[in-house]
Structures are given as C-alpha cells and as structure tokens.
C-alpha cells in the first residue's frame, strides 16, 4: 500500500508513466504532497492526475492477491 512519504516515481510503473496523466515534474513529490495538492482549492490538475495513476497502480497490484485456487 502506498505510504505518505513514498515518492510518486517509485509508485507508478513505467507503463503508466507513458500516460498523458503522468507529469515527470511531479515525479519526485511524495504521495502526501500529491494528495494535498490534488485536494487544494482549486485542485492542482497535474497532482489530481498523478494521484489517479498511483491509485490505479495500487488497485491493480491488489487484484492479483488472494486469487489463487
């Protein structure tokens, strides 16, 4: 599970870094910094998109767990 002090670039796999929602200038920010920027008023668009990529990664990683028969 992504921790607040994890760096965005360490959380997002190379494949999703090819998405238009990935912003390399936000890659060194922590997950907490990205969440805070995304929750700001008005929300930071790049942070909002990076947050979605992090959450998608986490969701897909979990999909493989506990599925073995």
């Amino acid at each position, binding site marked *: 599970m992504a921790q607040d002090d994890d760096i965005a670039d360490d959380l997002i796999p190379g*494949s999703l870094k*090819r998405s238009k929602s990935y912003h390399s200038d936000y890659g060194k920010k922590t997950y907490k910094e990205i969440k805070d920027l995304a929750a700001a008023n008005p929300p930071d668009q790049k942070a909002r998109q990076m947050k*979605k990529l992090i959450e998608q990664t986490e*969701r897909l990683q979990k999909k493989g767990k506990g599925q*073995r028969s």
Partner: protein
Amino acid sequence: MNNLRAFKQKLSIVYRLWEEKDYDAALAEVESLRKTWPGNARLHILWASLVQLQDDPKHDLDEAKQALQQAVELDRGSPAAAIELGHFLDNVEDNPHAAAKAYADGVSTARQLLMDGLIGQAKVFRQFEKREEFLRCLLEVLHLAGFKTVKGPYAEEIQDLLSEAVGDRSALACD
C-alpha cells in the same frame, strides 16, 4: 491433463507471479493462455491489467484499452470488463465522462446478475422454509429493482415472490 485443469493451473501460476510482483512473467503466462483461449474475456482483462503494471513496457496503453474493449464485447453478460474499462478511462486517461458510461454499463449488468442470483436464492430458501432468509433475499431484490415491481425483466418473478411473502397476490396489483 484436461484443458480445464491445465487452465486453472496456469491461472494459479499467473496469480502467484502477480503476488510476487513478477508482472513480466505473469504477463508471459497470460499471453500463452490467450493463444489457447483467444476468446476468453477474463484473460483479456488480466492481460490489460498486467500491461499497466509493467516497469519496462512492451505494449502501449492503447493496446491495454483495446483488450478491455474486446473483453466487454466478448462477454456482455459479465460486468467485470466494463468496470475495469471504467477504471482505465478515469484513472489512466482522466476521462471521467467516458468512464461514467462504462461504469453505468457494468453496474447495470452486475445489478441484473445479482437480482437473478437473489431471486434464485430466495426460491431455494422458500423450498427449505427458511422464511427469514427468503425475506432478506426478497428485500434485497426489491431494493435493487428500486421498488419497481411491475416493470423490468424480473417483474413477474418478483411479483410471485412478493405474493408468497404476503400471502395475497391480489393485494399487490397496484399498477
């Protein structure tokens, strides 16, 4: 070894590799399975998911999206592909409008599927004379149907179950 057993064994390997975060190896296993079972929607979904998790990508994200769209077409009766496509459209493409449509399709299919299951379960509980469980299933069906028991694909079956619950079908003729 029969085909089904081989399929399940291979899937088990895929999920073990997935848990170990060896996404490249898991993807290779899924690709091998897809050659044998090309029309399997679940394999398309697994493939698209693993492509997104690759650190050293061999496929474009557009290919992952296409695989999800194909999965939707291959198995219209299952909500899984539409829901997965919704996640992709919202989280990867940041296209919530397109995602909303995919989620709506998936949720609608899931609702129908759940209603079908609950109606069947209610009938079984009725046979076992388990009234409390029967009523719980029926309430859930009614909730899913939005308490509209007169129209829709399961209207007649819901009416039958309701009449069983209250013991007087004529009392339910409310349309």
